[in-house]
């Protein structure tokens, strides 16, 4: 292994540096500026550390890397087992990439309880990274649940008018769904004696678990329900618009960009990884839900009067693509799903930042309040347009690659679904451009808007990295895909016979 000495502990570092930062932040005096700078430094440090991962990632290898496996609790056999493969690698980097931007975007928008805000943000980062790096089911669930609290608090404390409703709804919805996963995890532990993902997967593959065939159906559903709510797959999506609208900008960003990916990541890693047989059997209706999600999310997004709600519903639509790709069980579909996850993270994250910037100035998200903003805020308008274009899947920007791969993969598996899903290409253009037109074009109808200031330096630093990332991902997706491809290939190994059966005419 030709990696440097940092590799064995790098995942631990990346995961827990934000936590350590949060702890230190606790001790810092309540001076807002210091706290912001400190949070930024911590999150940047995490990002820099996380860059170690792609740099030293051994491309052709499909297994887990940077693994660390130490016993944590002996009695239930819980290990501190972390590791990443091509699938989780980029999600980790996505998280660490977005957190500094979240700090920046909150620079001025959070004026009260600054300390709490950044502590929660850093805690959330730790939990999110933990979700993606855990290879022990217990550890995974541990981090999975741990994401709930900071997120709910971010929404509930720093949110807008209906914040409490949204926070509670978010919390309860995902909490109740994820307990089913807990039950499934417990079942697996009870019958395998281990929480280790790899070990359980091997046991399942070798058919060594008694009673597994009868239970698998329910276990699959247990995992699926938790993930489906998180994704959110139609019809489990209604928490999302509320949560998004009420959340503070940084919360929305992380919620859309990373939290939702926990669901799709889970589907990919656990539902597909542990229950290939059941995944195959259930794929048809899950794909139906995904397609409904794509179209439904888009149509509902189209008619939203509230910018953030619109973006939220667009997430439902985009995540539908991801699920469609995942359950196509094709190389292209899964690659695409992974890529959509990342692309959606960047572009929707940026969209929420942009919406937040507007909210900071006008304290509203109502589209009808705006109009003609391109005149007073040209840079903002241009940045917004760029991100919108990325989001509607313009080639050479990040959205396209994923959608294309997903749809072509889905087309190989089930053409009709893919065709229906492909209408999403039209819908996304409709709702985003329509919204863009209403907000930015025309004359300034609302006199207040004339005096709006353009992007500040801090905001530029927050938004533009996303734009650059969107462009780079669109032009050189190969940088990402090469790592994803091999991981997906091995994830699909159990499905080879499925795929070959389906590709026929």
């Amino acid at each position, binding site marked *: 292994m030709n990696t440097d000495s940092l590799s064995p502990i790098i995942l631990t570092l990346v995961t827990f540096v934000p936590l350590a930062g949060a702890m230190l932040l606790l001790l810092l005096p309540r001076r807002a500026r210091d706290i912001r700078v400190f949070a930024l430094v911590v999150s940047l440090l995490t990002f820099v550390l996380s860059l170690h991962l792609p740099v030293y990632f051994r491309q052709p290898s499909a297994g887990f890397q940077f693994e660390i496996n130490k016993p944590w609790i002996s009695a239930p056999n819980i290990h501190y087992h972390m590791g990443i493969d091509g699938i989780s690698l980029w999600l980790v980097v996505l998280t660490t990439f977005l957190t500094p931007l979240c700090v920046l975007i909150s620079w001025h928008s959070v004026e009260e309880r600054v300390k709490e805000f950044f502590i929660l943000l850093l805690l959330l980062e730790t939990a999110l990274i933990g979700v993606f790096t855990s290879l022990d089911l217990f550890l995974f669930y541990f981090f999975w649940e741990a994401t709930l609290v900071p997120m709910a608090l971010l929404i509930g404390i720093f949110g807008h008018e209906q914040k409490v409703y949204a926070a509670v709804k978010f919390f309860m919805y995902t909490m109740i769904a994820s307990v089913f996963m807990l039950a499934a995890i417990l079942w697996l532990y009870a019958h395998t004696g281990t929480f280790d993902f790899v070990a359980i997967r091997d046991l399942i593959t070798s058919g060594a678990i008694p009673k597994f065939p009868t239970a698998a159906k329910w276990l699959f559903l247990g995992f699926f329900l938790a993930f489906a709510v998180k994704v959110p797959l139609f019809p489990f999506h209604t928490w999302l618009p509320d949560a998004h609208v009420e959340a503070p900008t940084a919360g929305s960003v992380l919620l859309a960009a990373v939290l939702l990916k926990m669901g799709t990541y889970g589907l990919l890693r656990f539902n597909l990884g542990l229950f290939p047989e059941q995944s195959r059997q259930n794929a048809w209706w899950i794909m139906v839900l995904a397609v409904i999600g794509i179209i439904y999310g888009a149509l509902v997004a189209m*008619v*939203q009067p509230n910018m953030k709600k619109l973006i939220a519903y667009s997430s439902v639509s985009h995540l539908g693509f991801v699920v469609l790709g995942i359950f196509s069980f094709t190389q292209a579909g899964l*690659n695409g799903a992974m890529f959509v996850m990342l692309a959606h993270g960047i572009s929707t994250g940026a969209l929420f930042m942009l919406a937040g910037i507007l909210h900071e100035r006008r304290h509203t998200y109502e589209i009808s309040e705006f109009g003609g903003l*391109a005149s007073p805020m040209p840079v903002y308008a241009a940045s917004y347009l760029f991100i919108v274009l990325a989001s509607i899947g313009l080639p050479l920007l990040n959205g396209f690659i994923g959608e294309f791969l997903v749809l072509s993969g889905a087309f190989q598996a089930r053409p009709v679904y893919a065709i229906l899903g492909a209408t999403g290409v039209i819908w996304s253009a409709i709702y985003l451009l329509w919204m863009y037109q209403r907000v930015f074009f025309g004359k300034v109808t609302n006199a207040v808007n004339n005096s709006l200031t353009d992007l500040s330096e801090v905001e530029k630093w927050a938004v533009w990295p996303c734009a650059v990332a969107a462009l780079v991902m669109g032009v050189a997706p190969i940088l990402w895909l090469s790592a994803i491809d091999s991981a997906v290939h091995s994830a699909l190994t159990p499905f080879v016979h499925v795929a070959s059966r389906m590709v026929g005419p």
Partner: protein
Amino acid sequence: MNPNLNLWLIPVLPLAGAAINGFFGKKSSRQAITIVALFFCGAAFACALWVAARFSSLSLPYQEFFAHWIRSGPFSADFSFYLDQLSLVMLLVVTGVGFLIHIYSVGYMCDDPGYYRFFSYLNLFMFFMLTLVLSGNYLQMFIGWEGVGLASYLLIGYWFTKDSAASAGKKAFIVNRVGDFGFLIALFLLIKHFGSLNFTQVFDAVKPISPETAGVGLLTTIGILLMVGACGKSAQIPLYVWLPDAMEGPTPVSALIHAATMVTAGVYMVARSHVIFERAPIALTVVAIIGTLTAFFAATIGIAQTDIKRVLAYSTVSQLGYMFLACGVGAFSAGIFHLMTHAFFKGLLFLAAGSVIHAIGGEQDMRKMGGLRTKIPWTFWTMTAGTLAIAGIPGFAGFFSKDEILWKAYQASWAYWLVGLITAFITSFYMFRLWFLTFFGQYRGEADSTRAVHDAHSAHGHGGIHESPKVMVIPLVILALLSVIGGYVGVPSSLGGNNHFDRFLGPVFGSTLPAESQNPAIGEKRTSERETEGTEPKTETSTELMFTGISVLAALLGFGLAWLLYYRSPDLPDRIAARFSVAYDTLVHKYYVDEFYAAVFVKPLINFSTRILWQDVDRKVIDAAVDDAGYGAEHVSDDVRHMQSGNIRSYAGWVAAGSALVIAFMVWMGVR
């Protein structure tokens, strides 16, 4: 084997220009912006010329790999470039006409506050268009395909404070997306069945397939889906609605994007995919029918329009229909030929129209023009050249190309020919109508153009009707020249030429069908073509000549009618319109297609989404179910807690009852 041409430079140069202007233009001087924009566009043109110069020494098709783009399992799509005769023609047209229009724009846009933005967009468009033209696979082509759509969106909505402009831009993008949907599905089919999107690989895989004659086979499906894409981009029925609205953009944009280059991308794509289409006769028929119908309908609409640019827009739609008709009957080279000549004369017409608009301070309504002949002579004369070219007056570029198409159409079916002929007549009519209305008679506009207009010219310092500056006139002249002589590269043999153009493209469109399985219809035509090239029978030539005569006659008739109605007795049209008010209204309202779309697709969709999906399904069903679960729990809670009555005796009662149950159960267990 082949020298490295570095084709990637050609698209990347304008991109650099766009980036420089986009990022730094705001603070740069106008001169700097102009220099950057023109330099990079001109450099691309120069490169194109350089490539053309070296073209003969290449073994074709010339391919150039630049970088990997997407790789997923066995599938991969790369940044690669593909050069053959077809793309060379397109390359030259795009860079050449594009460069001219850039020059023109310098004058036209000189007072616009968003000057840098405009050139940035324009350069960006060049980048995408060149990417489209030069791409070596369908996916990269799709980059350009979508990219030009984006540029079009940006440029149509260039004056974004105008609601109509913003809407038009959005409409263009969305309608194009509908077409792209078809395109994408076609690509998926290609991937699924051929595993690649590279032109060479796909075509090599398709070539052994015999033509599908019956049913909707794979290639037919692919063909039709590609045609759907082309319909969007090239504004064919039923997706043509965006193009007339696109005239909200600045006139150079209309000339460059919505006349000369972008809208022809569909034709280019169909021609590029001719290997597939040749094997899908049904798809070809669809192409031909769509082309014919579009040509006819758009032309009829053109009759009644009063906005000078809109007339030209419908004319563009109509001419694009011709090109598709050509492709549909298998005469791809004729289609490309018309594409080229059309780029010249329609670009010219738009620029000239722009010059007219410029001259009279932004007015676009022909009813408020008239008598401009003497005031803007350069514009008048160049416009005349363009009009003659499009009307199909012999000797001008449009004549040759249109004539070839009609002839090829006749060979496929007389119906195509007939409709095409009528269209030619109408075309001639409305073009001369425009010509007469604009340049002859009395000036009908307000003497002093002080009215607020939407063009940037409202702030224009120089009042009164005036000729455009040199920087605008020079491109006009060049294009006028091209409109006159452009047709001579492809003079059909029947007219004494030897059809250089057709021959030049021959290697591209040469029959790829396996000899034993030739489609009778196409096969025959092919045979006849081959004969035409060699020692063609006399009868064929004479028939062709006769048809040429007929079409010339139609053009002249059109001129005559226009002369009669708009020069001789200008009050006649109103009376006719009054007499046939229904028909006239229908034409004025463009057959109510926009209204139809709004009523059938847009409004129901919005209503459906708002009322049913959002308000009912999302809020009242799904979300309400979630909330009700919560409220339900609270209700249950409220009921259940009445167990806690506060009365000790009740509590004891619960305990007693509970213990009775426990005891009973245990007794049962014990007995069992």
